[in-house]
């Protein structure tokens, strides 16, 4: 399997990678980690706030990917989306379980000058889309999405905390997500 080349994986390569992962193939696990280990760890660090928690998250994410590998269908979405959705779900689940824990201050990529980057094609493309998405949002929209996506607050919880009608929160979330979605349209589809 040659999935260590730079640039986004082709759907066929993504499929092969997941088949290798399912079988516990060393090369496949390492190829997957080489591409997505850093973004998964970064998500864990920024959401959970400690290296230990981020390392645990990374292990859990790749184990979960192995368990669900047979379900991955490149015709329905990219591996980069699939894997980071798993990572986000696991991280937010953990946040919700640890209700008393102190939350780290969320740091987004455009707030850190000269942040170390990844060389892998999928990640560069995703980070470009993320940069466009962040740039398209107003401060209020960014705060709203941050609370929902990174803190796991429901629209109702935000509505109650801010004293804003639920419908208004939902409308604002939708508006913000439409902008993120537009920023995504520049990404190459498989």
């Amino acid at each position, binding site marked *: 399997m040659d999935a260590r080349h730079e640039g986004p994986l082709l759907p066929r390569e993504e499929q092969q990678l997941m*088949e290798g992962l399912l079988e516990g193939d060393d090369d496949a696990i390492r190829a997957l*980690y080489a591409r997505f280990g850093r973004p998964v760890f970064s998500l864990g660090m920024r959401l959970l706030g400690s290296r230990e928690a981020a390392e645990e998250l990374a292990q859990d994410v790749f184990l979960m990917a192995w368990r669900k590998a*047979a379900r991955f269908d490149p015709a329905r*979405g990219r591996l980069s989306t699939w894997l980071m959705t798993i990572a986000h779900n696991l991280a937010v689940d953990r946040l919700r379980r640890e209700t008393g824990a102190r939350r780290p201050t969320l740091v987004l990529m455009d707030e850190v000058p000269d942040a170390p980057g990844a060389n892998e094609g999928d990640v560069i493309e995703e980070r470009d889309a993320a940069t466009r998405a962040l740039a398209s949002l107003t401060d209020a929209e960014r705060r709203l999405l941050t609370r929902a996506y990174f803190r796991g607050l429901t629209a109702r919880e935000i509505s109650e905390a801010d004293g804003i009608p639920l419908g208004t929160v939902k409308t604002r979330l939708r508006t913000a997500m439409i902008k993120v979605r537009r920023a995504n349209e520049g990404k190459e589809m498989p």
Partner: protein
Amino acid sequence: MNCLTVRERLVEHALGVLTDGDASSLDRHFEWCAACRKEAGELQRAAATLAYSVAPAEPPAELEERVVAAVREAAGRRPGAAPRRSRAAAAGVLAAMLALSGLGWGAVMAGRAGRLEDQVEIQQQQQRRAVANFRELIEDLEGADPANIVEVASLMSPRLRTGGGDALVLLSPSSDDLALVVLSGLTDLREAQFPLEVRLLSDRAGALVVGHVRALDSGGGGAISKWFVGNLNAYSTVVVRDARGKVLLNGGLGVQEPVA
């Protein structure tokens, strides 16, 4: 749940902030509604972009080895000691499924409901409750591996006739995997249609027979279970056929997972 209601919740679904029950309802809707599934997939791709927007952090060099070792161990698992305890614990799971089969109300009411939307809604309610019951039970089992994953399926008749069922697959990294299938409300079968055959299907691994059901109780209910030494995580569909091979019930296995 109709498309209008689903569309109102798609953003929250993509952001991962719906309750498990609500998310499961939407996932069930996506199984048969291609338009909502497509919309959900696009929103989920957008949401995943946000995950890439956090400031990068450098993982420790040794993390790769730990991840590789963890996945390799899980893939080449099956030590001999764990199954006994898990099997004893799973007797409780079977008991709960049998209790659920006695309820049978979801399938029966779905069969009586006139409108397609009502039928689907009732089935979704049944699924929600089954998911909650199964999960709670598995989590409470003494000695269960915390890394276990429970997948469930709500089985429906392709022709929306009376009858339904639930399936549960327990994927365990430390012991054998388990498949349990409960049938209910299959009251209009003729003797010649028995035995019923229950299979798990996989695009890549083909079909795996869970077992045969030779008779049902007066409410059209029954249950079957089987332990598998092999790995069941390749299987995504449960199908129940009659003796002639006609599909009576089927359903897709899943935990709450990305639409992608």
